[in-house]
C-alpha cells in the first residue's frame, strides 16, 4: 500500500496556530505533502466552539471515521453523530465496560457503529479497498491456526475464567510477538515485563536483586528498545 497523507482541519486561522507547540507538527504535515484546511480567515483566533464546528468538516472530508477513544459527552461523540448525519461510515474500537475513555465508543457500537478489531474490519466496508483485505485476513488467520496458540488458549482458560476470549487471544498474540533478547543475561528481568506496567519494586521482589542492579538492567533493556517506561512502571515493546 502507498504511504498515506495527512489532512489537518483547524478551528482557527493560519496565523494563530493553537496550541503553539503544534507549529512543528504543522510544518511536518506540509513538508510531507499533507494538507491543512480551515474555514476561518487567517487572523481568527481559536474559540472552543470553533472546534466542535470544524469537526463537521473533518467528518465531511472523510470516507468514514474511526473512533478510538471517546468519553461520555465528548467532542469525539459529536463528530461521530455529525458523520452519521453526513452519511459517512462510523467505526469504533470496543473498550472494557468500565473504561472511562470507552464509554462513548461502546455507546456508538450499541447505536450501530461498526465494531473494529483489525484493519480489515475497516477495509471490508469499502468496495474500493476490498482487494487489500484478503492478505490481511489470511495473516490474522495464520495466528489463530497455529495449534500451539490454541493449546495455550485452553491453558489460559483454565487459569483465568474472568478473561473473555477476546482479550485472551490478544494477550496470546502479544506474547508470541515479544522480542527475543540478544543478551540472555537480563532474561529473568525481561520475562517479568509484559503489557501491563510492572513496578521496579515488584521486579525487585520477584528476582531478589538489589534496586540498583535492577535499575541498571531496566535501563539497558530500555535503551535497546525492549521495554518502555510508562506511568506506574515498565511495559515491554512488541514486534510490529
Amino acid at each position, binding site marked *: 500500500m502507498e504511504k498515506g497523507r495527512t489532512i489537518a482541519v483547524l478551528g482557527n486561522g493560519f496565523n494563530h496556530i493553537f496550541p503553539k*507547540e503544534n507549529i512543528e507538527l504543522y510544518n511536518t504535515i506540509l513538508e510531507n505533502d499533507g494538507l491543512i484546511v480551515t474555514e476561518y480567515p487567517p487572523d481568527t483566533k481559536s474559540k472552543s466552539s470553533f472546534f466542535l464546528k470544524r469537526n463537521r468538516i473533518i467528518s465531511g472530508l472523510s470516507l468514514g471515521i474511526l473512533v478510538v477513544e471517546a468519553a461520555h459527552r465528548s467532542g469525539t461523540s459529536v463528530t461521530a453523530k455529525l458523520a452519521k448525519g453526513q452519511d459517512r461510515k462510523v467505526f469504533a474500537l470496543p473498550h472494557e465496560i*468500565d*473504561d*472511562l475513555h470507552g464509554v462513548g465508543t461502546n455507546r456508538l457500537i450499541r447505536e450501530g457503529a461498526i465494531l473494529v478489531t483489525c484493519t480489515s474490519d475497516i477495509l471490508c466496508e469499502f468496495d474500493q479497498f476490498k482487494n487489500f483485505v484478503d492478505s490481511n485476513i489470511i495473516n490474522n488467520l495464520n495466528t489463530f491456526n497455529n495449534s500451539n496458540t490454541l493449546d495455550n488458549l485452553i491453558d489460559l482458560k483454565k487459569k483465568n475464567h474472568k478473561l473473555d476470549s477476546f482479550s485472551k487471544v490478544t494477550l496470546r498474540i502479544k506474547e508470541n510477538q515479544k522480542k527475543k533478547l540478544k543478551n540472555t543475561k537480563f532474561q529473568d528481568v525481561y520475562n517479568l515485563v509484559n503489557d501491563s*506496567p510492572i*513496578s*521496579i*519494586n515488584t521486579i*525487585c521482589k520477584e528476582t531478589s536483586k538489589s*534496586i*540498583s*542492579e535492577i*535499575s*541498571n538492567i*531496566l*535501563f*539497558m533493556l*530500555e*535503551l535497546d*528498545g525492549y521495554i518502555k*517506561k*510508562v*506511568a*506506574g*512502571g515498565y511495559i515491554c515493546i512488541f514486534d510490529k
Partner: protein
Amino acid sequence: MLSIVKSIALNGLNGYLVQIQVDVSAGMPSFEIVGLPDTSIKESKERVRTAIKNSNTEFLSRKIVVNLAPASTKKEGSIFDLSIAVGILIANGDICSSNLENDLQETIFVGELALDGNIEHVNGILPICIEARNLGIKKIVLPKSNAKEASVIEDIKVIPVSNLNEVINYLNGVIKIQETPKINFISSLNSNYPFDFADVKGQENVKRALEISAAGFHNCLLIGSPGSGKTMLARCLPSILPKLNFEEALEITKIHSISGLLSNDEPLVCTRPFRSPHHTITQTSLVGGGKNPKPGEISLAHYGVLFLDELTEFNKSTLELLRGPLEDRVVTISRLNSTVTYPCNFMFVASMNPCPCGYFGSNDKECSCNESQIQKYINKISGPLLDRIDIHIEVESVKYDKLESNSSAENSKTIRQRVNNARNIQLERYKNHNIFSNSQLTPKLINEYCKLSFESKKILRNAFENLGLSARAYNRILKVARTIADLDNSKDIKTYHLTEAIQYRTLDRKYWSR
C-alpha cells in the same frame, strides 16, 4: 552618679556590644531612655521601675537618664531590662560598685524583668553568648531558663538568676551563685528519632533514592498517588542523614534560638531539623522577613530537610522564591531598618501527585484526567525550580498484604552507616573546595571529579538521544552518579552507576518530554 553596664543586641544572627550608661542626678524626677529604643524598650521603663520597687529596694525620685550606646542603631526587645535595672541600682548605690569595677567590664547582663522582679526567658541567647565570647567577655548573667542553652559555649561563665533580688545580692557579694556546668556535645547527641525506615514496608526504590539523596545532599521529589506513603517516607529521612558535628549544631541552634524555638530540655539542637510547612505558607514565613527580619522556614531547615508536601498546592510565586536560596545557600533579607543574611543550606524534599485526580499510573484506580489536565498540573512547578531537583522518584502504593507481612526491612541505622561513609568520602575529596557534598558541585568541579569512561559517555549520549532527556538533566545525572559511586565506595563512576542515576530523572522523560 554614672554607671556603665554591658549587654549585647542582635542583628540577625550577629550580635554587637551595647553599653547601658545610666546617670542618676538631682533634679525634676524623670526616667528617660535614649539611644534609638523601640516601643518594647521604652515600655521597659515601667517594668524596671516596678521590678526594683518590688525587690525591697527604693526607686528614688531622681532624674534618671539611660543611654544605649551606640546611640545610632535601632534597638528592640526586652533583653535590656535586666541591664538597665542593674545600671540604675549601681548608679543609686544599691549595688556597691567599688569591688565590681573590673568585673563589670567583663560581664554582660541579659534578661527580661517581670513586675515582681522575676527574670524571664529571652530568645537568641546562643548567638549572644557566641558574640560575647568573641568580644572577650568572661561572664554572662542571664535568666535561669536560658542557662542550659548558654552552657554550650566554652570559655564563658554562665550565672543563672531567677529574680532581681538574687542579682543584687550576688553583685554585692552576699550570696554565691553556682555557675552552670558546660554541656558535653557528644553526650547530648541523641540518636532517637521517632521514625525509622524499618517501619516502612516495601518501597525499596524510594528508600534507595532517599539514601542517595541523603548521601549526596541531593534535592528530591517524590511523586505518587494519595496514600502511597510519600509523607511517611519523607519523615523517615532525617533518621538516615549524617550526624551533626558541633559547628553545624551551633549554627542550627543559633537560628532556632533567635526564633525562640528551643526547648528547655534540648539546649542544643542535636538532630537535623525537619521542617514541613503547610502549603498555605506565606512568602515571608518561607524565606524570612518582617520589620526586623526573622528567619523563615528555609533557614530553620538549615543543615536539615525542608519538606514541602503537596508541592503543586503551594502558591506558585511562593515556590519561585526558593530558586535563589537553593542555589546560593544563604538568603539576604533587606528591609527598611536592616539587612540580614541568614544561612539556608537545606535539603529540599517535596512530594506531589502525578495528576489532579492523583491516580495517573496507579494500579489501584483508573485515572480520570486527560493529557492536557496532567500537563497543566505538572506545569504548576516551573522548569527552573525543577532544574534544582536532582532526584525524581515514583512512589507506588503498597498492597495490603505487604502491609500485613512481617518481612523486616532494613533499619535506618544500617542505611545511615552507608550514608556516613559516602559523606566522609565527599568531605575528604572536597576539603579544598569549601563544599561538603556532591550536590554542590559546580560545572567546573563536575568536569574534574565526574569523569566518565568512553563506554559510559556512549551510553549517556545514547540515552539523551533515545529517551528524550532534556539537556538540563546532564549535570544532575553526573552529580547523582558521583554519589552512587561514593555509596559503592568506588573511585571512578562506572557504567552501572551512571545508568542508575539516569533512572532518577523520571520527570524529564515522562511528563516533561515534548
